[in-house]
């Protein structure tokens, strides 16, 4: 049996994977947009984004727009690489079934 790759546990979490996938196709996104797309609760979303931030996969920027606080997230180069490697590992593990 060939050696199968390890899946990155930080990326593998369902919500974290959804967040990285969303952030991979936009320049940056607001907390509220990510919440709407993932349908996660504020607490859970904040906790998972913090884990991604601690791993260096996303960068956070806090600013005020028309006196309202806005938290904006952006995927880092490390995060993009981690997601790419995760997809590669996933496809390798699934083998030809991944293309079905």
């Amino acid at each position: 049996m060939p050696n199968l790759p390890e899946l990155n546990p930080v990326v593998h979490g369902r919500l974290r994977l959804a967040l990285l996938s969303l952030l991979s196709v936009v320049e940056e996104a607001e907390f509220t947009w990510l919440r709407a797309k993932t349908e996660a609760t504020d607490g859970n979303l904040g906790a998972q984004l913090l884990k991604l931030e601690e791993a260096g996969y996303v960068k956070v920027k806090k600013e005020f727009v028309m006196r309202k606080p806005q938290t904006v997230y952006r995927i880092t180069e490390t995060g993009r690489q981690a997601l790419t490697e995760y997809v590669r590992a996933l496809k390798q593990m699934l083998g030809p079934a991944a293309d079905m």
Partner: protein
Amino acid sequence: MQDHTTEQELRDRLSLIESMIAEGRRNTENWGWMFVLWGVAYGLALGWSAWNHSAWAWPATVSMAIIVSAVAASVKTRNRPATTLSRAIACIWIALCISMFLLFAALGLSGRLTDHLFMAVISAMLGMAYGASGLILRWKLQFGCAVVWWVAAVVTCFGTDAQSTIVFLVAIFVCQIVFGTYGVIAEAQKRKRLSSVHA
């Protein structure tokens, strides 16, 4: 880790990635209504100017359309993510609006604006914007509309007043109303399809 991970779970992760990437990309494709709005604005301005030859027909109608577009766009893009693609497309249309506004205001004030010049320049500029946007988005239909505008720009230089006006109206109808309505319908169908995939 893979010992505890079932094949079904891995497939689930793969489809999650695909659906989230599709969700992220959906945000740049929801602007068909804007083409319809501007088509109606051009039609109103043409009708108004033909009715009483008012010098205010075009400036007033276009200014109103700019205000409605700006307000609607700011509401629509609030809390939306920024993408390079959406910014590139937005820049083309913003630059087009500024160019048209400055050129026609200057030509109007200097008294050098003729009907033929007006229709030819509008058609050429719209052809440029449609062409650039169509090439960036690789959208053949939008590039086809650019060709219609370019043909209209050339024809309005050679035709009589009546011929030029008819060609200009046809271009507005095809490239703004028909294309915009098609965009609205296509976006609605796409949303419906994606919702059923996610359900």
